[in-house]
């Protein structure tokens, strides 16, 4: 059996068995349209293409346990990598699952008591009215003119979750709060007080602001829902993957240093990318040397 087939046996097949157990005991119910086997198949294909920062295959570098756990988290949350609901990201020897904004929406909509989720970005000059009723914020009016829409003039964003009992949950974040969340992001979109223009957050500021407020709303919501613990646990684990937990990172980097520092031996290559011009170093007396190139 090839290495890849062996690895598949230790990861994908293990997860498939585990999922079958969950199904049998009724611990978890998948949406009717979700087929765990198909999601696993497409995940396996995608995983073979995932590379680390230094262009190594994630499947060669990441531990079997982390691969299996990532796949299990994906299936428990009913996420599909083909629909870009989640991504696989290697951190050192650990593979991690990151949920996209589509993924967060999909999973929250799956929670029993949720009817709909809607989100909007608030631009400068928008007319916004927030009232507080019974201690909860409510958006009673939001008027936006077309000319207000400018990704450089975002002042905040909000998400409204409509429940099946017709109550409404509102999450509002100012741009300052959103940027504070971005400072914790593993993608380093911030440079001090400014959003890096070249980052995804700089290029698609409105979309990323929506993602952040949706994430926060869904996180708060999922944790107060009465859905199965397995699902919520898995949901929270993936949410954490996106942000740099204090201890996580310290452990990550010291583990990485332990594993990788001062290991790979390298030396000058025979092949030189530029050649020294013959006689370049020859300096005659009383004459200044020529410049290198």
């Amino acid at each position, binding site marked *: 059996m090839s290495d890849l087939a062996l690895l598949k046996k230790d990861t994908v097949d293990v997860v498939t068995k585990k999922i079958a157990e969950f199904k049998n005991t009724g611990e978890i119910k998948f949406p009717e349209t979700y087929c765990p086997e198909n999601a696993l198949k497409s995940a396996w294909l995608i995983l073979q293409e995932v590379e680390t920062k*230094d262009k190594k295959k994630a499947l060669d570098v990441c531990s079997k346990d982390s691969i299996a756990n990532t796949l299990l988290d994906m299936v428990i949350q009913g996420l599909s990598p083909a629909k870009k609901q989640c991504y696989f990201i290697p951190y050192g020897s650990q593979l991690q699952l990151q949920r996209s904004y589509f993924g967060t929406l999909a999973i929250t909509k799956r929670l029993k008591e949720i009817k709909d989720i809607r989100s909007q970005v608030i631009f400068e000059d928008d007319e916004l009215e927030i009232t507080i009723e019974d201690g909860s914020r409510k958006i009673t009016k939001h008027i936006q003119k077309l000319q207000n829409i400018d990704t450089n003039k975002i002042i905040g964003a909000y998400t409204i979750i409509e429940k099946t009992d017709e109550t409404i949950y509102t999450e509002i974040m100012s741009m300052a709060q959103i940027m504070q969340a971005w*400072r*914790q992001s593993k993608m*380093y979109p911030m440079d001090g007080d400014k959003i890096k223009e070249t980052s995804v957050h700089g290029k698609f500021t409105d979309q990323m602001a929506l993602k952040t407020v949706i994430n926060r709303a869904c996180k708060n919501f999922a944790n107060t829902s009465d859905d199965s613990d397995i699902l919520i646990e898995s949901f929270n684990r993936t949410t954490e993957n996106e942000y*740099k937990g*204090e201890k996580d*990172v*310290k452990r990550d*980097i010291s583990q*990485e*240093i332990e594993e*990788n*520092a*001062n*290991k*790979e*031996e*390298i*030396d*000058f*290559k*025979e*092949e*030189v*990318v*530029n*050649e*020294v011009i013959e006689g*370049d*170093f020859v*300096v005659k007396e009383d004459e*200044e*040397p020529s*410049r*290198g*190139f």
Partner: protein
Amino acid sequence: MKLIVIGSSSKGNCYILEGEHHKLILEAGIKFDEVKKALEFKLDYVAGCLVTHSHKDHLGHVGNFLINGIQVYGSKGTMGELNNHNINYVKSKQTFYVGEFKILAFDSIHDTEEPLNFLIESSLTGERLLFITDSAYCKYKFKDIDYLLVECNFKESIIQKNVEDKKIPEFIAQRIRETHMEFETTKRLILNYPGVKKVILIHLSDKNSDPGLFEEELTFHANCPVHVAKVGDEYAL
């Protein structure tokens, strides 16, 4: 060889490595006027300038270097949108010559695109200097190193205390841990090169380091003199 320190902190980094005939500038994070002064205005001896990554304190003044005809060597990720005929793109694990210096670029661990560090050998004397900065650690191990010019940015105990005292926020501390070399990592690196003749510690953090302690403790562990680079220092290598 001789090394002159023009800047070695997050305010700006620049070093001059003098060989037999040529000079090599390391980093372009200091005003070119100051570099010229340190070069005693003899630009003809300068073979080129190596840049490690795109942060301002390393690349901020590269425009003036290029205008003044200095050949600059860095990765595509570092040079970004910059466009100038004096730019020479290099990649990790490539060997190239800059004047009398033979150079091997290798990738470092930092939060910029394609950051590099360099192994520099005098092709006249064969002496080797390993230049490592702004890297959480160095993946690689090299043979026959004579001199280390290596980052020793912070000490975990000091940074932890600063976080507790609210002098720096935790997320900044995290970023530093992921992108700069900690005292113990530097120590481990030094201990990997027992044959080294001199160690020069660079890029110490203002808040999170202790130059006296670093020098003292690392001198104790290394088999050679260990110095903390200060602006204006000159070291015979």
